[in-house]
Structures are given as structure tokens and as C-alpha cells.
């Protein structure tokens, strides 16, 4: 099949067997790849009510038709599962070189099923697929395991590995790859850990077939030329995502002290140019990327090396904890990566604990004696370790802020910054209604990448609650995740501003199927509705309540910074949802109407 590796690899861990089946043509036609394949297999194959950490859950790893191709940014891999963090849908996107290698091994998806009786790793070398004993790897940190495989097998092999967090089933454990790229959110690492799979080691030497070689080359070259000609290329590549730290600080979007404000008085010490000057040594790109956002750092203060920190980690492990030392943030980043936990959720959990401590809700008796004031770097490092090991107060924080706040109570629920149980990524949304709505309605919980709408807030008036904003959020939610479906990165469009129509002829030349962006946006809309139906299926009573943000954003105006005294009213929060549901064709409780399901052609999928 043109544009595809051609096979789905099923790994039955319970029985220790592996089997390949041809990638179904109709699934490729309707769901294209990546997270499209993910939600399709999740809905079809994981039974209702499955325990996320039980044998019925599956971990679905998918590339897409532009992965590994001559297309800028074709290095994204989708990891879909039922999320241990939220009990709903999880889809984590991982950069690096893994997804390209899957394609060269002839694989479109790898589906991990069941639970292995003992620790194993999955070894794939073209058509050779084996489950191998991982007893000596269990308990090891991620970098050591990756290094061990690379030294033994060579740099052509790609490795995805869980850390101690994944082994200990921390619900926001991640999967590490390429010394610093992660499938980060929702607990995909815990699912891999529950299956007793320590690592996947992958090597492929096959070529990916395409429909029209000449048009593919022409289309791919045109995309690279557009990226290289883009005005912003040099600046973007110099700083990567850290380019937005100063902007967020100025507009009040930089999470500060557990999102109590959006500007940080010492934020300047965390800005992109400071980091570049102090610690960055190499620009590190994912597969095929002409504008590498990865900044690889040498941290002299801690005598360590780490990829990053990128913006989200600077926000959550820096300003959100009242830490203004970029080298300390980089070290916290390294500890999280090596132990295999998500920096965004961990930064939220620690920020929440620090606020509890400063308010007297948690005391030294609860914190294993740690002085959990904002700004305490050493305590932050210790908490990261405790979370991954579920030790002492780490066991509480490992549950995620929603469950932890429910246990602790005393009003701490109000400053547990999450939606649907997923901790919010690094945009403070006190007065940015489109971005707030984006977080409220995001399909995995409070994550930014489906609809990064905050620039639109600034453009049209941040406090406005108007249908145009809602329409913008919906368009972004339909369109941006299509890059995850195609197996590529959206940042060439977002940051370099290249014309998205340039992808159309290239994609057609690869797959032989013409799809305009209108067609692709429609696929995005179908997938968005399917993920909503998945949440409903798995959670009785799922509806509007689940879309509400942290009360911090409608009850507590910041006392300082660019958004001082600014808030979105609860009435406006509900108006946003009313407009959103109406435009989506959902009921006033946020459920897709039968006619919406029908008109999107989804009846057979959810039947």
C-alpha cells in the first residue's frame, strides 16, 4: 500500500507471541494513520470499562504517511491508550527518530496487548520480532538503558524506554526516546510498565513505497524550500520553544507559583536568550526537521547533559515553582526524563504541594520533613525522585493533582490545576478565553497542543467571549491534530508559517489519494468526535462538569503581573461551553448529537 509500511504488529504479552497483519486499507483511507489509527483501534478493541493498567488495555503506537519521508518534520509517533491519569482517552505525541524507523521496518502500528508475566523488551529488526528478557534492565533509569542498547547494537537502532516511574505505574509516567524526547502525557509510560515492557528496540532497512516518485520529490523539496526561506527560521532555530518564555511573561501567560499569576518577577532569568547563552550546546532535531526546536544543554552547575528544557518545562519546573535558575530547571528536567515522569504533570503536582505547604494544608509531618516553600530547588529534586519511587509524600503526588487534592481536601481542590484529571500545561489562562476553552475541551485533558489559541486571544481581545473565538478553537482542534494523524510535526506551519496547502500534493504523491485540507479537517473533526464518544463510553455521567477548568481561572484574579486583577467569570465559562457545544453539534451537556454522529459518518465506527 503506497505511503504505508504495510503491517500492523500485534504483540501479545500474556502469551509471549507476536503476529503481523496487513494494515487495513479502509482504516488507512478513513483514519490515515497516527492518532487516527490510535482512536480507531482503541474504540474497536479495548473493551468498555477496561482497567487502564490491566490486561485488557492496549498501547497503540502508530506512525503516519509522512513519517520518515522527505517531508519536513516527519518524525512524530502517536501513543494511544486508555489513560491511567484520567480514565479517558490518551494520545501522546513523541518526536525523535522512532516513527521513521517503524516505517523502515514495515510497520504502521505496534499494538501491545495483555501483560507479560516478567519484564521483557521488544526487539524488532526488519522482519525479526522477539520478546526478550529484561530482568537486568528493570529498575534502571532511561538514559542508561538507551545507552546500553546503542553501545551494543549501534546508532541505527532506535530505543523507546520507560523509567522507574513507568515501572511503578505512576499515572503520569512517560516514555523516553533519543535521550530527551518523550511520549509524555496521560501515563502511556505507566501502561507500558503495567505490561512489563521495559523497552522497544527497533531497526529497519526497508524503503517506504510511494504512489508517484517524481511528484513526491518535487512536493517534498517545495516544503523544505518554504521552510528554509521562512523569515523566522533562524530565530526559531536558535531558541526553539523557549522563544515564547519572555512573551508569555509579558502577556501574563507564564504559570507562576502554581498558576496563581501569569507573570514572574524573576522571569527574565529563564528567558530563551539567557538559556542559550548559559547552557545550550547543540540544536537537536527530530527526524527530517529543518527547524529543530530541541536545544541540547550542558549543565556545568550540575555536571550533566540534558535535552532542553523546552518551554513547558521552564514554565512548570521554573516559574510555576518560583525557581528562577535555568540550570536548576534543566536539572529537574533531566531527573524527570531519566526517571520517566512527565515534567508538566510533575511540575503541577509539586506546585500544588508547595501551595498546600505555604497555606499550612500540608506541614513538615506530611512532607517527609521537606521545607516545601516555593523556590526550594533541592526539595524539588527530592520530590521528583519520591514521585517516581512513590515514596513518602511522593506516593500522594504521584496520583496527580486531582486525586491528591481529593485526598487532602481543605480547599486544595480549588488550586489543583487540571481538566479531566490531566494537569494543565504551561499557559496561565486567567484572562485568555479562547485558550481557556481550548484547555477545557481538549480531548486528553488540559493540554495545549490541540488548540494553541492564546495568540488569537491577544489578537481579537483576550476577554471577549464571542462565537468567532469558539470557531477558531474548533478549527484548530480539527486541524492541528491532523499532523499527529499524518505522523508529522505542526511547528513548521505554526512557527515558520509555511502554507499548509504545500502538504497536499506531497501527501497525494505518497499515498495516491488526493485529500484537500478541507477533507483533512473533516477527518480531524471525525476523530475529535470519536474521542469524545470514547470519554462518554468510559465514564458514566460524562458531560459539561468534566469540561470545567480549575476554579483558579474564574475565582482568583492574580495579585500581580500582566493579568493582575483579571479573571473570566463563571458565567462566561459556561457561555463559552454553550457556544462550543452548539457549534460542535453537541447537546447542552457536551455530548455529540445522533445527527452529528450520522453526518460525520461515524455510526458504524461506534456501533
Amino acid at each position, binding site marked *: 500500500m503506497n505511503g504505508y509500511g504495510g503491517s500492523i504488529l500485534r504483540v501479545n504479552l500474556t502469551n509471549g507471541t507476536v503476529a503481523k497483519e496487513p494494515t487495513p486499507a479502509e482504516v488507512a483511507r478513513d483514519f490515515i494513520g497516527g492518532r487516527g489509527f490510535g482512536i480507531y483501534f482503541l474504540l474497536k478493541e479495548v473493551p468498555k470499562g477496561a482497567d487502564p493498567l490491566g490486561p485488557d488495555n492496549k498501547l497503540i503506537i502508530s506512525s503516519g504517511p509522512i513519517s*520518515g*519521508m*522527505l517531508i*519536513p518534520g516527519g*518524525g512524530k509517533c502517536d501513543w494511544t491508550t486508555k489513560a491511567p491519569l484520567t480514565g479517558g482517552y490518551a494520545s501522546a505525541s513523541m518526536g525523535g*527518530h522512532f516513527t*521513521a524507523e517503524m516505517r*523502515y521496518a514495515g510497520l504502521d502500528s505496534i499494538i501491545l496487548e495483555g501483560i507479560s508475566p516478567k519484564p521483557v523488551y521488544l526487539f524488532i529488526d526488519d522482519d525479526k520480532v522477539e520478546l526478550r528478557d529484561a530482568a537486568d534492565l528493570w529498575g534502571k533509569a532511561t*538514559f542508561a538503558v538507551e*545507552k546500553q542498547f546503542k553501545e551494543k547494537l549501534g*546508532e*541505527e537502532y532506535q530505543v523507546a524506554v520507560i523509567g522507574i516511574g513507568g515501572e511503578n505505574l505512576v499515572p503520569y509516567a512517560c516514555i523516553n526516546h*533519543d*535521550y530527551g524526547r518523550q511520549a509524555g502525557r496521560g501515563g502511556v509510560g505507566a501502561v507500558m510498565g503495567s505490561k512489563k515492557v521495559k523497552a522497544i528496540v527497533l531497526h529497519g*532497512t*526497508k*524503503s*517506504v513505497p*510511494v504512489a508517484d*516518485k517524481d511528484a513526491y*520529490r518535487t512536493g*517534498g*523539496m517545495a516544503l*523544505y*524550500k518554504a*521552510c*528554509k526561506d521562512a523569515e523566522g*527560521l533562524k530565530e526559531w*532555530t536558535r531558541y526553539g520553544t523557549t522563544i515564547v518564555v519572555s512573551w508569555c511573561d509579558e502577556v501574563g501567560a507564564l504559570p507562576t507559583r502554581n498558576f496563581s499569576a501569569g507573570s514572574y518577577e524573576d522571569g527574565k532569568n529563564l528567558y530563551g536568550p539567557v538559556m542559550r547563552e548559559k547552557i545550550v*550546546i*547543540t*540544536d*537537536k*532535531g*527530530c*527526524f*527530517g*526537521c*529543518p*527547524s*529543530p526546536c*530541541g536545544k*541540547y*544543554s*550542558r549543565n556545568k552547575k550540575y555536571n550533566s*547533559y*540534558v535535552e532542553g528544557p523546552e518551554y513547558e518545562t521552564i514554565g512548570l519546573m521554573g516559574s510555576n515553582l518560583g525557581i528562577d535558575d535555568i540550570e536548576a530547571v534543566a536539572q529537574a528536567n533531566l531527573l524527570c526524563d531519566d526517571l520517566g515522569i512527565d515534567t508538566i504533570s510533575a511540575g503541577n503536582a509539586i506546585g500544588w504541594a508547595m501551595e498546600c505547604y505555604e497555606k499550612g494544608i500540608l506541614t513538615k509531618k506530611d512532607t517527609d520533613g521537606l521545607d516545601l516553600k516555593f523556590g526550594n530547588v533541592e526539595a524539588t529534586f527530592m520530590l521528583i525522585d519520591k514521585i517516581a519511587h512513590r515514596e513518602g509524600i511522593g506516593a500522594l503526588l504521584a496520583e496527580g493533582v486531582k486525586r491528591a487534592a481529593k485526598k487532602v481536601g481543605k480547599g486544595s481542590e480549588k488550586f489543583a490545576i487540571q481538566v479531566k484529571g490531566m494537569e494543565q500545561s504551561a499557559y496561565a489562562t486567567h484572562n485568555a478565553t479562547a485558550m481557556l476553552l481550548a484547555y477545557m475541551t481538549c480531548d486528553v485533558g488540559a493540554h495545549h497542543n490541540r488548540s494553541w489559541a492564546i495568540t488569537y486571544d491577544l489578537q481579537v481581545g483576550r476577554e471577549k467571549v464571542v462565537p468567532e473565538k469558539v470557531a477558531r478553537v474548533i478549527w484548530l482542534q480539527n486541524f492541528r491534530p491532523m499532523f499527529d494523524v499524518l505522523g508529522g510535526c505542526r511547528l513548521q506551519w505554526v512557527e515558520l508559517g509555511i502554507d499548509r496547502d504545500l502538504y497536499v500534493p506531497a501527501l497525494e504523491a505518497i499515498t495516491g489519494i488526493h485529500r484537500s485540507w478541507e477533507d483533512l479537517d473533516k477527518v480531524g473533526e471525525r476523530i475529535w468526535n470519536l474521542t469524545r464518544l470514547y470519554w462518554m463510553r468510559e465514564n458514566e455521567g460524562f458531560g459539561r462538569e468534566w469540561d470545567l477548568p480549575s476554579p483558579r481561572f474564574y475565582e482568583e484574579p492574580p495579585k500581580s503581573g500582566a493579568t493582575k486583577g483579571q479573571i473570566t467569570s463563571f458565567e462566561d465559562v459556561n457561555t463559552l461551553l454553550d457556544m462550543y457545544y452548539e457549534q460542535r453539534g453537541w447537546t447542552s451537556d457536551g455530548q455529540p448529537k445522533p445527527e452529528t454522529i450520522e453526518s460525520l459518518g461515524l455510526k458504524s465506527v461506534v456501533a
Partner: protein
Amino acid sequence: MRLYVDSAKCSGCNACRVACSLNLFGETNPKKSALVIEPQFPAPGVYKVSVCTQCGDCAAVCPTEAIKKDEQGAYYVEFAECNLCEACVPECPEEVMFVRSKLADTAWKCDLCGDCVAVCGTSALWIAEIETAAA
């Protein structure tokens, strides 16, 4: 003319290797490219890139004279004339002369097509006149 690289600018993305395989074989398969990127992580955290200098040492030992020189001074492999003897491989001082018989029934090397330069977003690669010791 030859290809030059500044390894310090390489971000390891491999776009060059995809473009190379597409030019040499009409395939999307970086294992069949003529550039080598060696990631050195976690420390010292750099990429080491090897490219062909067009020195011609490979051509000098080829028993079938399958490695020829084109009008711009680039040595290329005439695939049909290669007998896979591998004599060229150890001669290459940069280790960018390839024989992987499972992947292709010919040796291959850089033919200076320039596609790698065209896709490199960090300007790590360029083509220029060969610098001589006298220059």
C-alpha cells in the same frame, strides 16, 4: 567541487540522508544514503557527520572501473558495472563508501547531486571548490 559539512551545525535530523537515498536509488531509505551522521549522546552531545571529499581513492582501486568521474569532478558509481567486491570500502578515508549487499546489489557513494544541501535547514552542508593545500 565537493561537499563540505560543519558538524557543529548538524541537528541530526537525517533529512539529508532521505534526500540522498531518493537521489541515488529513487527510494526513501536513509540506510541507503552516502552521508553518515553519528550521534554522540548523552555526552558530549554533538553529531559527527562524515561526507565524501571526492578524493578518488575509491576509483583508484576499483577493479571493474565502475567508479567514474563526471564533468563537475564528482566520482560516482555506475551501478551496472559494480561487482560488489568491496575493494573500495576500506580505501575511503571518511568511511562513506558503502556496500550493503542486503540492501542493494551495488556499491554507492556521494555523486554530488546537492539534494542534501537543499534540504538542510541548519546550513550544515554546502558544496564548494575543493580546497588544496596550496590554496
